[in-house]
């Protein structure tokens, strides 16, 4: 089942889906169902295109007003550019709460207040006696262990206050949450309630009672429980309005103790408040050692006491400064796009507000700053400060009784104290999360500093889901394995502190373990934060093991991926024992070339493909060794898509090695050419011009060893020919190489004569290579084919001045001017631009080893969708290169999988109509030049092709997309990519395994009007198909080297020859689609309008017939004869022609 690309709009990119409408043919055929076609979106072509601005002189040069000057100055001082200012303003408009909504929320809150105050009280009972609880409600807390001393009674709250972002005005749409603190009356609480979860039990019971009474109220659409920030000891009650306001707002009720009820000194991070005797049912070890401190537990209690003081603190700072509020809103969007703000230990908007308050107090932010400047300052601070080493504090007093920062660093990975000096605001934030925030901030700062890109779009509008941001991802499932891991890692104290939440207890140690093990391979390790569950009040709270899955993500260093060795210390050093302990049985003593004897771990990996997956080996080995998690519980998603670019019999490589071998052979050949003696002019340069030579050919060539008996032989020209009664021989594509000769004045100055002289060079080249190096050659007028080590190269001699000669035009007055002609442009492209591009991409592959995989996977996908022939090879390679050269807001991909996902994302969201894709190869373009290119693009938009790609060598014409794709084909690709991306991401993020990974590679066939089924016998690349075919044919190849005295069959691909004929004969009536990698079907689509009767014209009778319609003679396509022509032209190749005549009428 492939993604259906029907005419419906794509939710991911609604703008794009409308972007490109057919520019050539805008009306559909008569009687065709509009909804079933892809060509249905038609708007006037002018709409949605940027036009160059034309202001009259008077308007441009009128006297400025004071306001205008102020506005311009403000823009210059406070913002980066006027565009950014406008963009930020628009975004804020979009996410801010409207006054209307605020009124409705206010009304709802007043209602809640009244109802909460009216909840009846109940008499005092023992905490363990919960018989009073009505049947319809469950306590929203895991009461383990169950027995707790103490009494509980319900009294209406002493005070109901709105706290949090809603009051501060930093609340953003969508998902509006309003936090309401319910201060529990002092009578409910007892002394020492802070001990052994007694406070939390009472809190939960308080909520349960409240929930029971509010649940029956018709005011509420839903009453559910959830956790506060994902902390499972602190449930809260969610109230949503009824009726049409259902999704307007979620009110969250947080019970909290009366102010000053808990003494802060008892809740310091070094104190214990959960006794082992109670928690584990056993007394602490008898030797009088101390109880383990419970810093997290203490923090959770403290958080409840500080709700109101935090609100007051923030409101004094934020209330008078609209710029700061804008900054908070922007940062919230920034965090949310990066999935950093959700779940336990997320970097919430509250933390950001506190951080801004801190920066205001240290005078790094001024209250008059704009939102953009606040965003920038906060990112700058995050990027340059490490809170895991040097914590910060909002507390100004120097009271010696306050705990030291060092105490907090002992207990928590990240330290940021509030104004009381007792509470660590970042208590739940793990080191990994903080490093991720830091990493993102660094990337964003780099982006803001580089002026070329559209920072706003990349920073605030581009989502960065885990699967698209990280190279490898793995899921741990089932989560209950982590319980065993906790025991193995001896994390009893942490469990006690976390109240039994083994997932968060194990997370920190596990990430540290993996970070140490992955070492130089790893750039950043991130983990998904467990999502915050929500459940009905009549259900038990979800168990820890049900809290979804734990996904860990790795951002790899490509330079670290090449090594298979983990070098340890020398054997006699004391550290060696640690190393052995860490790596277990994998650690071996090895003697190295420099004579050292060291501990080392060697991973088995021969090919690039296997080396990329060494992290998989490391992760499974370490988890099994240290955490008792077997590899069946680790679902590693890193190389799943690689199977699509593996050769037929290759399962241990993705072809990088084969490509490198071909390039080596090409290098040998160019050396031979340089040293060739006897040419009238010596060879000055040899340049590759074929995808293989830039590592982007989907299936790398294999050396040919033809079995002569399989072929006809043409002895006098030393060539093999295909034989009629055999299956089509293996496909051998010659690799084009351009050969430049030294300059000379002897060349003729006439285009025809130059052609002849080049032909003479081709002949001479063949002769000399044969004589001097014994290579089998075949010369034609335009090229010389050379067979070397089983690879065939096509050498084309180039004369530098030939395009010049083709361009020369003589005006009537005798003035010689230079004008581009199609022939000169074509020559220029093939002889100059193609080799330059090939060498630039070859260089890119050396920098980024994953480039080859990404480009090939992308090309493979486009071709598998039958769209490959609409795009030139080079244009797709350039799009893939853009992912590496302009990765913002990501980092350059280190695995083909993530690169491919980003390719789909780029293709489906890029605004091809209003933007050129600038691929800054070798970083040759400066910022100013890029801006110039962009403005030049706007002026020349109408003359440029639909898809525009500029490179430093091609700044004006977009050579590689000149002849395609057409607007429809590009639109189809955009739609397909937008469909494929969510499907694939969902498959990869599914912890139960991805299912059939080839789903998105299967093309939808239901959109075609006619299907031509081909016989696999005559498809030479049949075995490359996405789904490996069941039948296979002998293609005339030997498995061991044979003699190489005859030239193999070159470039003979019957489906391609057939397509060329079809396009020539019926190109103006229909479009033909085919997957060159083993496709068995040619899809035919009638062009819209081609069925419309036309008056007779002698120049356009091709394939038409004259018919009389209403007494008039008109021409209509002779469809029945054409369908039979399909079979006639492809005799032997065509199996069946399936006309889906229900889709069209003549």
């Amino acid at each position: 089942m492939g993604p259906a690309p029907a005419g419906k709009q794509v939710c991911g990119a609604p703008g794009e889906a409308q972007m490109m409408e057919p520019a050539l043919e805008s009306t559909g055929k008569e009687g065709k169902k509009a909804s079933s076609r892809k060509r249905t979106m038609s708007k006037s072509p002018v709409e949605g295109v940027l036009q160059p601005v034309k202001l009259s002189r008077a308007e441009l040069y009128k006297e400025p007003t004071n306001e205008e000057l102020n506005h311009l100055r403000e823009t210059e001082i406070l913002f980066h550019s006027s565009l950014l200012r406008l963009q930020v303003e628009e975004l804020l408009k979009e996410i801010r709460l409207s006054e209307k909504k605020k009124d409705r929320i206010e009304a709802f809150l007043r209602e809640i207040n009244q109802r909460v105050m009216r909840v009846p009280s109940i008499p005092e009972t023992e905490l363990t006696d919960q018989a009073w609880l009505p049947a319809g409600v469950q306590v929203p807390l895991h009461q383990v262990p169950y027995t707790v001393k103490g009494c509980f009674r319900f009294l209406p709250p002493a005070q109901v206050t709105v706290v949090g972002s809603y009051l501060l005005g930093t609340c953003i749409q969508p998902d509006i949450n309003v936090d309401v603190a319910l201060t529990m009356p002092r009578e409910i609480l007892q002394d020492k309630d802070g001990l052994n979860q007694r406070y939390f039990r009472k809190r939960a019971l308080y909520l349960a009672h409240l929930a029971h009474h509010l649940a029956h109220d018709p005011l509420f659409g839903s009453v559910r429980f959830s956790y506060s920030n994902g902390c499972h000891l602190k449930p809260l009650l969610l109230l949503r309005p009824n009726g049409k306001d259902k999704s307007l707002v979620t009110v969250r009720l947080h019970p909290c103790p009366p102010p000053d009820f808990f003494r802060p000194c008892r809740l310091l991070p070094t104190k214990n408040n959960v006794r082992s005797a109670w928690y584990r049912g056993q007394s602490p070890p008898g030797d009088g050692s101390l109880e383990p401190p419970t810093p997290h537990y203490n923090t959770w209690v403290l958080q409840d006491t500080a709700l109101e003081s935090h609100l007051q603190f923030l409101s004094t700072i934020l209330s008078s400064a609209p710029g700061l509020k804008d900054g908070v809103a922007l940062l919230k969007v920034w965090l949310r796009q990066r999935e950093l703000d959700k779940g336990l230990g997320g970097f919430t908007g509250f933390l950001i507000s506190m951080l801004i308050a801190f920066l205001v107090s240290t005078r790094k932010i001024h209250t008059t700053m704009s939102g953009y400047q606040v965003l920038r300052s906060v990112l700058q601070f995050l990027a340059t400060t490490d809170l895991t080493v040097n914590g910060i504090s909002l507390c100004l007093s120097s009271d010696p009784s306050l705990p030291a920062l060092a105490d907090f660093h002992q207990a928590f990975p990240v330290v940021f104290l509030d104004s009381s000096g007792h509470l660590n605001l970042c208590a739940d934030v793990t080191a990994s999360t903080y490093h991720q925030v830091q990493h993102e901030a660094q990337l964003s700062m780099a982006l803001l500093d580089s002026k070329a890109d559209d920072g706003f779009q990349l920073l605030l509008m581009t989502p960065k889901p885990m699967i698209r941001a990280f190279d490898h991802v793995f899921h741990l499932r089932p989560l209950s394995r982590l319980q065993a891991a906790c025991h193995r890692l001896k994390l009893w104290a942490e469990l006690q502190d976390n109240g039994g939440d083994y997932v968060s207890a194990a997370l920190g140690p596990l990430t540290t373990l993996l970070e140490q093990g992955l070492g130089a391979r790893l750039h950043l390790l991130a983990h998904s934060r467990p999502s915050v569950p929500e459940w009905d009040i009549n259900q038990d709270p979800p168990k820890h093991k049900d809290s979804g899955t734990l996904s860990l993500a790795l951002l790899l260093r490509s330079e670290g991926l090449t090594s298979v060795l983990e070098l340890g210390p020398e054997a006699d050093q004391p550290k060696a024992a640690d190393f052995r302990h860490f790596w277990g049985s994998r650690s071996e003593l090895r003697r190295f070339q420099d004579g050292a004897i060291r501990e080392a771990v060697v991973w088995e990996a021969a090919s690039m493909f296997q080396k990329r997956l060494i992290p998989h080996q490391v992760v499974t080995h370490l988890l099994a060794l240290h955490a008792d998690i077997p590899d069946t519980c680790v679902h590693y998603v890193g190389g799943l898509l690689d199977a699509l670019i593996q050769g037929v019999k290759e399962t241990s490589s993705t072809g990088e090695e084969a490509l490198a071998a071909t390039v080596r052979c090409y290098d040998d050949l160019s050396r031979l050419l340089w040293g060739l003696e006897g040419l009238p002019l010596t060879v000055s340069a040899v340049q590759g011009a074929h995808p293989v030579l830039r590592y982007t050919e989907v299936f790398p060539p294999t050396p040919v060893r033809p079995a002569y008996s399989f072929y006809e032989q043409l002895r006098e020209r030393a060539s093999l020919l295909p034989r009629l009664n055999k299956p089509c021989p293996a496909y051998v594509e010659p690799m084009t190489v351009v050969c430049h000769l030294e300059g000379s004045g002897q060349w003729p100055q006439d285009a025809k004569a130059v052609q002849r002289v080049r032909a003479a060079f081709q002949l001479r080249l063949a002769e000399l290579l044969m004589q001097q190096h014994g290579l089998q050659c075949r010369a034609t007028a335009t090229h010389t084919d050379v067979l070397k080590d089983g690879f065939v190269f096509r050498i084309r001699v180039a004369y530098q001045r030939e395009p010049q000669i083709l361009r020369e035009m003589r005006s009537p007055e005798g003035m010689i001017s230079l004008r581009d002609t199609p022939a000169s442009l074509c020559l220029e492209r093939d002889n100059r631009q193609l080799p330059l591009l090939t060498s630039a991409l070859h260089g890119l592959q050396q920098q980024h080893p994953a480039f080859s995989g990404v480009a090939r996977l992308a090309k493979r996908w486009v071709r598998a969708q039958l769209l490959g022939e609409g795009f030139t090879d080079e244009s797709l390679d350039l799009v893939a290169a853009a992912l590496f050269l302009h990765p913002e807001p990501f980092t350059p991909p280190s695995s083909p999988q993530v690169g491919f996902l980003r390719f789909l994302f780029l293709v489906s969201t890029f605004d091809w109509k209003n933007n050129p894709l600038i691929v800054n190869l070798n970083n040759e373009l400066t910022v100013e030049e890029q801006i110039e290119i962009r403005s030049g693009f706007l002026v020349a938009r109408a003359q440029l092709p639909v898809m525009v790609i500029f490179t430093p060598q091609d700044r004006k014409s977009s050579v590689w997309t000149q002849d395609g794709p057409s607007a429809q084909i590009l639109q189809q690709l955009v739609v397909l990519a937008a469909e494929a991306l969510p499907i694939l991401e969902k498959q990869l993020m599914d912890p139960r395994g991805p299912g059939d990974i080839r789903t998105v590679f299967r093309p939808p066939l239901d959109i075609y009007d006619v299907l031509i089924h081909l016989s696999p016998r005559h498809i030479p690349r049949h075995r490359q198909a996405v789904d490996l075919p069941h039948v296979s044919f002998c293609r005339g190849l030997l498995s061991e080297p044979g003699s190489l005295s005859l030239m193999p069959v070159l470039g003979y691909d019957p489906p391609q020859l057939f397509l060329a004929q079809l396009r020539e004969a019926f190109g103006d009536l229909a479009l033909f689609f085919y997957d060159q990698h083993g496709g068995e079907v040619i899809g035919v689509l009638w062009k819209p309008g081609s069925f419309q009767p036309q008056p007779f014209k002698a120049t356009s009778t091709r394939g038409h017939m004259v018919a009389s319609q209403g007494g008039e003679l008109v021409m209509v396509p002779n469809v029945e004869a054409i369908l039979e022509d399909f079979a006639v032209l492809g005799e032997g190749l065509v199996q069946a022609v399936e006309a889906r005549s229900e889709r069209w009428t003549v």
Partner: protein
Amino acid sequence: MVARKRKRAGRNSEEGIPSPPGYSAIPIKFSEKQQASHYLYVRAHSVREGAKSNWPQKRTLFILNVPPYCTEESLLRLLSPCGPVQSVELQEKPDLTENPKEPKSKYFHPKPVQGFQVAYVVFQKPSGVSAALTLKGPLLVSTESHPVKSGIHKWISDYTDSIPDPEALRVEVDTFMEAYDQKIAEEEAKAKEEEGVPDEEGWVKVTRRGRRPGLPRTEAASLRVLERERQKRARKELLNFYAWQHRESKMEHLAQLRKKFEEDKQRIELMRAQRKFRPY
């Protein structure tokens, strides 16, 4: 589809095949096996009064809509019953130019892939044309006695033909270059003769060769001269020297900002229309 076919067949037998005015239609099929047929539209070749043509009037038959699998040989065979045929030529488009064509080299101009074509058939006698106009058909391109290659057969034979004979290529190149060299030598000799010799009005032609060569008459050269002039002038000019220059440059800056602002506003408008500001 079947029903429609039957209907059309019936209509053909009753009314004859519709054809555009001046043309007559002849059905043509690849072989016996095909059901539907294409139609050749034929008429006598004629050109307007006074215009010349490459083909003799009256004896030439002009054919439209020749299917891609139909070769010159098969046309010759199919039309010879009407009278002896002198020549058959297939072309991509109807020929409008008057110039006689040069024979093209098969090495430097490989035969393109064939689609639907037009044909000019020259009969030896004018009667052949009139006989052809009344042909009933359907004509069969490929018969058992004269099979025409298509599909795999055709591609294999095309591949065989595409392998060139290097010797023949060499001979062709050599003959061409000899002729070319001779032509150049003649031109040079002529130019040498004329050099420095005034014409009847006394003008002497300046060439690039003589003792005092002139500038080449190319566009690039004239642009270069203009550019040099412009630079010379720019060097002499003073910037921001007078108060009015100062004022004007400030105004220019403001105008640039305004223009940019307008552009940005337009851009934002467009983005808003595309709902580009919904972050998620």
